[in-house]
């Protein structure tokens, strides 16, 4: 950042400026890392605290900071300035994107449909379960949650920090109703959605007058209330212990078990848990596609345009005769409904749920997916979900790193660190998310993407 002050317009290298900046960086790094890294306290055998110094390590950190500063101001900043000069008016993005946009969606759709087969062929029956379950299903659940939250945050511009509450309502609705009344998954799926939507409206009413930070705090509190109710209402929810033995969805009435009327026996296959996993994969894929389809349709309907108009300017909306109360409530209700669908699927897939799964961290993850994806963009949200959920999962698999850092290195311990770094980097490079343009809902002559600079983020 500071490097860009060294030579922003010309692209010439300003060595004195860079050195000055490097010295400042070194001083800041030294001041910051001296107490953090330079000193360390350990307990000796007498149980006394001893101060140790780690000056060589401190030196390495400061040197790294200086090197980073120099690379930024001497190499990256001039390179960026040169590139900026080369293409002043038409950005590269707008030239590439039509071609990508045309082929990306069908290709991605084809890929997710053949994905289980692909994994099965490569990994065999044993290896495939992990890839379909941990990666496929897990990611798709978050894609669905991202799509749902996108309605509330991305389109209507209402910052909701308690979205996981509706996910929890959906999960517990399915779990309790299925266990108590023995109703089937397909009957309870819409019911869980309706119940979640109902809670969405209940939350919506008191927060209608709130905006921005205040809205965020109230929704955050709402998420916590739901979680605390789940913990403390032991007779119904079984508290921390959670609900286990939740009925699994069947294949049109045929259960996935070892019985004579089980899926494997009916289709004359050898029993394997993978059939259920594959079935669940296609189930959540269908739900995701339904959500995507409905959301895309809604964006082109008056209600979708009213949501976006609400995000842009609420007072102008009212001056045009739009009932902003109803418009906000529908956004809350529909967003909550999709979370309810995802929640009931989650409960059916796990077979066990507890309040542990519905913490604030989940809300934060879903919100980061929406923000990272670019608010309002479906493809962006899908890519962000793959990057965030798939990325943290894949860091578990990176045994390669052991060959670089030695056998003591455990990559799983660093996955959140790497993940955080990646988030910071992406937010620096693309502050408005991966897909930073807004596609108009309809057009007269040509569909031109709207630059994010003009689109408001809601308040």
């Amino acid at each position, binding site marked *: 950042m500071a490097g860009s002050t060294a030579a922003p317009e010309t692209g010439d290298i300003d060595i004195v400026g860079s050195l000055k900046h490097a010295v400042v960086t070194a001083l800041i790094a030294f001041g910051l890392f001296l107490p953090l890294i330079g000193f360390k306290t350990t307990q000796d055998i007498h149980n006394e605290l001893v101060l140790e110094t780690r000056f060589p390590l401190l030196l390495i950190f400061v040197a790294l900071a200086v090197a980073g500063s120099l690379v930024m101001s001497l190499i990256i900043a001039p390179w960026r300035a040169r590139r900026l000069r080369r293409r002043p008016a038409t950005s590269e993005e707008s030239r590439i994107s039509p071609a990508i946009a045309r082929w990306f969606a069908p290709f991605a759709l084809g890929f997710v449909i053949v994905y289980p087969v692909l994994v099965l062929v490569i990994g065999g029956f044993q290896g495939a379960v992990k890839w379909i379950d941990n990666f496929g299903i897990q990611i798709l659940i978050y894609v669905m949650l991202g799509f749902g939250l996108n309605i509330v945050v991305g389109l209507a511009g209402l910052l909701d920090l308690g979205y996981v509450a509706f996910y929890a309502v959906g999960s517990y609705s399915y779990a309790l109703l299925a266990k108590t009344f023995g109703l089937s998954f397909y009957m309870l799926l819409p019911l869980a959605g309706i119940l979640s939507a109902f809670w969405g409206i209940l939350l919506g009413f008191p927060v209608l007058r709130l905006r921005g930070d205040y809205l965020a705090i109230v929704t955050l509190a709402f998420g916590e209330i739901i979680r605390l109710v789940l913990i403390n209402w032991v007779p119904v929810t079984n508290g921390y212990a959670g609900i286990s033995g939740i009925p699994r969805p069947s294949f049109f009435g045929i259960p996935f078990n070892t019985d004579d009327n089980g899926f494997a026996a009916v289709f004359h296959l050898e029993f394997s848990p993978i059939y259920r996993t594959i079935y669940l994969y296609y189930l959540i894929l269908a739900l995701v596609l339904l959500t995507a389809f409905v959301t895309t349709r809604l964006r082109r309907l*008056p209600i979708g345009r009213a949501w976006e*108009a609400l995000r842009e*300017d609420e007072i102008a909306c009212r001056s045009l005769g739009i009932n902003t109360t109803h418009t906000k409530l529908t956004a809350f209700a529909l967003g909550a409904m999709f979370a309810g669908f995802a929640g009931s699927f989650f409960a059916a897939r796990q077979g066990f749920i507890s309040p542990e799964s519905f913490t604030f961290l989940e809300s934060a993850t879903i919100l980061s997916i929406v923000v990272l994806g670019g608010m309002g963009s479906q493809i962006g949200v899908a890519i962000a979900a793959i990057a965030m959920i798939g990325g943290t999962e894949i860091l578990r698999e990176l045994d390669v790193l052991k060959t670089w850092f030695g056998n003591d290195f455990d990559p799983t311990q660093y996955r959140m660190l790497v993940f955080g770094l990646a988030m910071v980097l992406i937010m620096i490079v693309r502050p408005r998310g991966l897909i930073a343009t807004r596609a108009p809902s309809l057009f007269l002559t040509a569909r031109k993407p709207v630059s994010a600079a003009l689109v408001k983020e809601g308040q």
Partner: protein
Amino acid sequence: MTGDPLLRVDHLSMRFGGLVAVNDLSFVAERGEITALIGPNGAGKTTVFNCVTGFYKPTEGRIALAHGGARVWENLTAITLRGARYHRRADGALFLLERMPDYLVTQKAKVARTFQNIRLFAGMTLLENLLVAQHNPLMIASGFTLFGVLGAKSYARAEAAAVEKARHWLDLIGLIDRADDPAGALPYGAQRRLEIARAMCTDPVLLCLDEPAAGLNPRESAELNQLIRAIRTDHATSVLLIEHDMSVVMEISDRVVVLDYGSKIADGTPDAIRNDPKVIAAYLGVADADEVEKIKAEVGL
């Protein structure tokens, strides 16, 4: 009362705590006319607008609007006493705007407004801006979203008609070539015209324009005059106008109401207002007409 009144404001007062923004204001806007509301800064003009359009609830007073013929006014006292918001009958309807929330004032009573500081949906295209304005009829056509999601033909037809209407207005304000550009990318004068077109897409009987000529150059100002006149004659919409630019006010208004410190000080034709000593005194910031003469002498008029 003469003529065919569209809007009747009676004894309107608006107080914010101890501040009296509008004090016992009564005036009438006739159907098919352009009524201008003028006055020095802080006279309470925008407050009157906000009361008429439902954004403020007035502390006291009645704001009544009639659809249809002049005979609907017969019901005024009856519905005021009954506590009703509006009364519909075969030949029209009567609305009490001070009892209605802002969005219903536009939706039911058909009063549209623009804002002093332009409020467009900057990140949406011009076409989208004009379609948002047709939200209510489109919402009904889409079966409150239900048929729309299922892809009903009737909605597609309604949307095509809405786009056609938007195209008509874009043509009229000369922005048809920029229909697919974001509204925020338009130059200032074009944004003002678009905001007027957007308000007109709600099919209003009364259009309230809050300083439409502010920040426009003389040519744009002249174009605006033409547009406002066209709205009155071709679209059967009456206009209520707040304006500081006297060339606009004097040229297009049929009637001028002058406010100062929240009270009405004059009401009449532009010519009568132009020569009203009280109005001149208010604009010069002096107490009465005698002082006006003194100041005129001082500056050598």
